């Protein structure tokens, strides 16, 4: 459970940092009047905060999966699974998707609607390609005899990549909606915000994927060993 404790510690630091600015030591019973409210003129859009909180929840979900992975790994029946090289291409595709989405955000802010639309479409296509690629990777693995219930390493691989894939599907649905919206109307403030949110989500899912990839390919083993040493 060390991994999830570290994750929660990070969240706790963020919450503590935010709370520290909220005058928790003030004496509200002595303060009358509304001028004690120090919130800025320009509030951060609610959707942005909402996405931030949601990503914290998603982060907790994946760190818990990773925690379970490490704990289960300690059993003697664990035999790591070779990863198909194919996954490198998938990673590349997801990076492309993330970069183009970031580009779409930048172009939308520069009011280049046409460029933004194009890069949104590219990002959408790359996202779809990633999903298809993951399915191919699954097929390659299962036809090589690495079945879901064969070994816990396999089970974790299929389950966690599946969970990541589901999150990508959700992201694609949102991205698709935003792309459609840019198609019928010029990009306004709301759409620009939505593109930005999609980009943030995408970068996050890319980061999760990179961590998972490192985990499955065994590079994370050193970290695991370190965790074990800390625990014992």
């Amino acid at each position: 459970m060390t991994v999830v404790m570290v994750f929660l510690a990070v969240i706790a630091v963020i919450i503590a940092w935010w709370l520290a600015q909220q005058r928790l030591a003030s004496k509200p019973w002595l303060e009358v009047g509304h001028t004690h409210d120090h919130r800025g003129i320009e509030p951060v859009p609610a959707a942005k905060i909402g996405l931030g909180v949601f990503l914290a929840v998603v982060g907790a979900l994946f760190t818990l999966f990773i925690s379970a992975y490490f704990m289960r790994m300690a059993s003697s029946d664990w035999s790591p699974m070779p990863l198909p090289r194919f996954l490198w291409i998938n990673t590349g595709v997801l990076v492309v998707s993330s970069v183009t989405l970031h580009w779409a955000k930048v172009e939308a802010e520069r009011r280049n609607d046409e460029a933004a639309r194009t890069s949104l479409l590219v990002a959408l296509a790359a996202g779809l390609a990633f999903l298809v690629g993951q399915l191919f990777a699954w097929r390659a693995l299962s036809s090589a005899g690495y079945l879901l219930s064969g070994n816990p390493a396999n089970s974790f691989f299929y389950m966690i990549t599946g969970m990541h894939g589901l999150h990508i599907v959700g992201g694609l649905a949102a991205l698709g909606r935003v792309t459609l919206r840019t198609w019928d109307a010029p990009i306004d403030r709301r759409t620009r915000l939505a593109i930005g949110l999609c980009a943030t989500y995408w970068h996050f899912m890319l980061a999760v994927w990179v961590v998972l990839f490192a985990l499955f390919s065994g590079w994370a083993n050193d970290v695991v060993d370190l965790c074990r040493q800390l625990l014992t």
Partner: protein
Amino acid sequence: MVDVRSGIGEAVPPAEVEDVELYHPHSWWTRYVFSQDAKIIAIQYSTTAIAIGMVALVLSWLIRLQLGFPGTFELIDAERYYQFITMHGMIMVIYLLTALFLGGFGNYLIPLMVGARDMVFPYANMLSYWIYLLAVLVLAASFFAPGGPTGAGWTLYPPQAILSNTPGGRDWGIILMLSSLIIFIIGFTMGGLNYVVTVLQGRARGMTLMRMPLTVWGIITATVMALLAFPALFVACVMMLFDRLLGTSFFMPAIAEMGEQLEYGGGSPILFQHLFWFFGHPEVYIVALPAFGIVSDLISTHARKNIFGYRMMVWAIVIIGALSFVVWAHHMYVSGMNPYFGFFFATTTLIIAVPTAIKVYNWVLTLWRGDIHLTLPMLFALAFIVTFVNGGLTGLFLGNVVVDVPLSDTMFVVAHFHMVMGVAPILVIFGAIYHWYPKVTGRMLNEALGQLHFWVTFLGAYAIFFPMHYLGLVGVPRRYHELGDASFVTDSVHSLNAFISVAALIVGAAQIVFLFNLVWSLRHGREAGGNPWRATTLEWQTPETPPPHGNWGKELPVVYRWAYDYSVPGAPEDFIPQNQPAPGRMSHEAAS
């Protein structure tokens, strides 16, 4: 209201907090059924939770009938008994307490108390309810599925949960249970995001964090905890579903059943326990913190006195929330873990007693020399304090490894957790319903029926759970369908069990009185007016009661003071609403 800009050099907030784009319903369906109004959603959540809670109540009757009068009722065989205790526990903890506190009270009170028109994401809020309803329906469906609901105990420990000797283990029961939990968590996440972002972004002008009523503090801290803790249950459920349906071995060790070696091997049941309790312990506080918050407001309002040590109360809520993530393994003292871990978790567990005790002292000190009105909400609040202290003290017993080991899996544990997270929060729920029902409906609940409900419930709950401590000390194990004639089972155990069962039947019947009261008072209750308790918080200051869609009419309220200005010396009345400007500035306003 004229804008007062007297604080020279201070940051002056914008004249109006950005008004949300309010969704306007066009038909009866979108107004009352597929509503995006947090108040309607709150009522939907509450009704659903209470409805499924009634199922849990009937199950508890059946459990008690079996324990009190073993062998009398042929309907309740061992299998059914396990199904009943499992479903009773799961419904009460997740589908009633969590849903009612966060989905019900959270939805109703957060926007009103912080001065918002609605939740920030009304559509997701609506989805949250319908997904919750789906979860409840899936759960209820397991009663009708072949093989019946799961009988694995509410903790659903593998490997037994998915083996054929456990009711529902190889049938639909466990599948529906796990699916229902997964659905519930998805739905809750949508609601939870709303509660957090509404408190962060939706507060009215002047509503600083330290002016929020403790109810909001309690609910919001619990929500943040739930958002971070429920994923652990989600992961555990997904992994167990894989084990059950797809033949993986996440949790399942090599195991033989009916003389046959199963396909499983190498899995770790302890891994499930870690995941489950990583959710399970914060869950106790997810239920307790909203109760703490609400009870603080009830006590302050009905004792006509500001809450004692408001800052301490806020800090204690936050600290309890943080600490509750590092105590989970105290549920696993008997799982054979490293004794040093036991020592660590016992220490963290006992440390939680410090902020909790601070809260109890502050409630008592708020009552000290207060102008105590023994209204129904106050009675329930007082009953809560007593019950919570009681359950908290037995928690100190069970938190110590050496004391816990002999008491583990006895009725003492059952008595402890029912007192501290069963009876205590439910007393708060009752108090809160008596308190806010006038705002929700515009009418008071019937006082006489309420008194009857209170005394039977309060005294009856003690009649049920006090003797259980003794049963546990004698060594009566929990989860046993029948005690048989083991030497430690004395006659007093049997007669106490019968006594407890009779008490449970009576307390259950009192809840029907309460339900009748809820329905009857809708039409026949006394007219309440806008602020019957003469309370300070914003929800009592709405222009109309019950508050209409959008809550505040044309203008959002502006907050000038904290939530506890009761019996302020020199004030004309014994309460000053949060949205009332300072008297000196009123004259300034009149002049300008």
